[in-house]
């Protein structure tokens, strides 16, 4: 029965909200300005969020229970946060170091973190990716990439 009551409550909230919204929008002299649309969206978001707070089924209440993380999961989470931090540093470095230099540093670090053995291959991969992306975007597509203060651009033609 509690599920039915919650459902009736949901339907009533929606009907009342839609009724108020329609009445307000129909008032003569309503100002149609840049705030009208975002206001409607925010009201609807508020209603939806409220409805989400009403538990309908007992099963759903237990959905967000936090499971105890195993040691392996903790390692994976750490690696994820580490990667996110590296991406952020890379994007911060792009305007200062330029695309070429920043990418040359970024690729070996991330590849190492993802388990690539430390070899010369890392540098080769970094070089190939940086040069490949540079050629594709800067030369073929004529899309300027961040040059950095060193103006790390190669003149191809």
């Amino acid at each position, binding site marked *: 029965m509690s599920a039915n009551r919650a*459902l009736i409550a949901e339907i009533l909230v929606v009907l009342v909200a839609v009724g108020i919204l329609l009445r307000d*929008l129909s008032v003569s002299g309503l100002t149609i300005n840049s705030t009208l649309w975002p206001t409607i969206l925010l009201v609807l*978001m508020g209603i939806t969020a409220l409805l989400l707070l009403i538990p309908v089924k007992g099963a759903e209440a237990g959905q967000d229970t936090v499971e105890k993380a195993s040691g392996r999961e903790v390692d994976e989470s750490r690696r994820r946060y580490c990667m996110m931090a590296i991406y952020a540093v890379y994007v911060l470095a*792009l305007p200062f170091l330029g695309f070429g230099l920043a990418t040359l540093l970024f690729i070996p670090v991330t590849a190492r973190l993802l388990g690539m053995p430390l070899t010369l291959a890392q540098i080769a991969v970094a070089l190939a*990716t940086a040069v490949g992306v540079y050629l594709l975007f800067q030369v073929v597509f004529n899309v300027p990439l961040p040059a950095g203060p060193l103006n790390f651009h190669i003149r191809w033609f």
Partner: protein
Amino acid sequence: MEYVSAALHIIGDWTNLGLLAVGLVLGSLFGVLPGVSVLTAVVLVLPLTYALSSEGSIILLIGIYVSGIFAGSTTAILFNIPGDPQNACTAIDGYPMTRKGKAAKAIGAAIVSSAIGGLFGCLVLILVSRQLATVSLAFGPAEYFALTFLGLSVVSGLGVSSYGKTVLSVLAGLLLATFGVSEVSGESRFTFGIEILNSGFNFVPVIIGALAMSEVFEKAGDTKGLTGKYSGKAFSIRDGLPDMAEAKAMLPAWARGGALGTFIGALPGAGATVAAFVAYGVERAVNVRRKFFGRGEIAGVAAPETANNAAGMGTLVPLLALGIPGGGVAAVMLSALQIHGLQPGPLMFISQPVMVQVIFITALIANALILCIGPWQARYIVRLLTLPSYLLYPAIAVFCIVGAYSVNNNIFDVWVMLASGLVGAYLRTHGYSVVALVLGMVLGPIAEGAFVQGMIMFSSPLGFVSRPLSASMIALGVVFLTLPLLLRAFGSLRSWSKGANLSASAD
């Protein structure tokens, strides 16, 4: 017939055939990478058309356009990185298919569906372009708003775990689209005094972040990646071509996607992205295998791919029939024709009948050639799946970052992309729909513009249901929107009455 034969003679010329081939290759190259769109490609080659004949110019542009619309589906399917926004929907079911080791099947479905959608759109363009253009012109603010409402309503079925969370995701997407200077009054909204926010959030970095970067973040903890999910053998069209059972499963998606795509494409300002999302949403709501959508269902690849290619051809309807470009690429095509002293419109069918036939036949050939270009392109890209994750994911991250940067050539978009990646990863793990959020962002400006115009026209929201077409679309939207609630209510009532009967019989 003499015009058709003259047009075939022009297209059969070696120079023009070469231009078509160059166009197809360029389109597939530009379309496959995030951040550089088909529009960028046609804009970049526009200066070259000065040196070409009028027929050569249009053949080159159509080649780029047709293959560009399809090309982004390959990376969407293989890496969850849509090359163009119109391929974002393809990733929803295409990428799970790759994770199940069915990459070739997904790409095969995308290739065949794109060709079918494009050819369907071409046939509509040839047969009923004038009539369709007249209908599209009858679309006023009420109909545009009703169409966006319908599109957003059908997406309410996209949520895997929660209907309410999907609706909330759509609303959040619509709200994000309001950031920046309002088109209605020119006032800044939600900019918090930050100048760069005046232009709002571009949805391309959001799509790249929410779909691809969130996947990279997620995979950062899993060193296995996709390695081993694909055998690594060369992609063959034989592996991917749908068999009879699959073709039968995709047939309704092709029919609905083709019809919806062409119609939405013919509406000025709507375009292939809207068409793909609406077609996917409709398919997800009505397909007999809708329960499997989002988990690697082949019809989920077929519907958006059919729709976006059909919409690509639909965009040419108002251009050719009325001289009004329906989208960015059509506007460039209009410029290319005007450079050569041609003016598209109703008179073009009389004054330049051969040129009209050249456009029709080139579009038909280019769409049919997707069946050749697609496997050629996929053959090389699919090999990347055999790379170990420590090589693949850093490279994907670099492409995401460069792709987001190249939208407006600023770092702000890269930050937006990274933030969307984090938000996307959070939303995904908590049962919200990333795709619904993106759709809200895509449809937001159209919905707001139409809503405000409609409110000015009618002074009441009831005006939106005063016109038959808009009223029917809104009614259909309400059905889609309330269907999950009604089904739940029906289920609850049934279980309640069952319980009551049981207790009565026990008494």
